[in-house]
């Protein structure tokens, strides 16, 4: 077992503290922000960053403590950094469709309502597929 050394210990502790702090900030944003479109920002950015920090801290810890190079953490963080935007996009899409279906205007928060799409166009998620574009990949 390699002795950690004060620098490695400081780096690991800083990564863990940063990760925990960012995760807490993300969840606080989820509680504090006024509307769903604004609440999306907390978990998708801050919490993902916090988990990334904790994973880097864990990777450094096992590298310096046991001398074993583990790639699990990189796998987890890679997978999470890929999937978090997709999940957020899906939640936003569901929200837009639910607003349209209920015909109730959303209560704008401090950031205000998002600007409408230019030149009378509609949001892309409401549009019919363009001619020549397959509606789904299973149909061709």
């Amino acid at each position, binding site marked *: 077992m390699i002795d950690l050394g004060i620098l490695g210990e400081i780096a690991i502790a800083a990564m863990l*503290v940063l990760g925990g702090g960012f995760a807490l900030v993300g969840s606080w944003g989820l509680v504090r922000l006024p509307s769903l479109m604004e*609440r999306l920002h907390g978990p998708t950015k801050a919490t993902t960053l916090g988990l990334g920090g904790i994973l880097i801290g*864990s990777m450094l810890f096992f590298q310096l403590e046991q001398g074993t190079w*583990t790639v699990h953490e990189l796998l987890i963080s890679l997978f999470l950094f890929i999937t978090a935007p997709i999940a957020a996009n899906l939640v936003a899409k569901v929200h837009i469709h639910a607003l349209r279906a209920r015909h109730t205007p959303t209560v704008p928060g401090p950031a205000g309502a998002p600007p409408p799409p230019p030149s009378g166009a509609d949001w892309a998620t409401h549009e019919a597929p363009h001619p020549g574009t397959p509606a789904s990949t299973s149909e061709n």
Partner: protein
Amino acid sequence: MIGYAVTFAFACLALALGLNLWRLLKGPEVGDRVLALDTMVINSIAIIVLIGVATTNNTYFEAALLLAMVGFVGTVAYCKFMLRGDIIE
């Protein structure tokens, strides 16, 4: 020093899970609840990784990786169900 940092991160994540639970129970829309559940899964992954650091044991990473995949699939399934009323078409 690492012990204190691990304790601090555990406290932060426990508090974050409590806040997520509050949003999950209160959330005025279904999208809020799905988002809160997704965040809870991510925070649980962080707690599992932290348990691995606290016990100097790297057998927990498979659980974390599995939870990352299953959590994403669950979120997508919820959203798909709310969009189309069906998961597999």
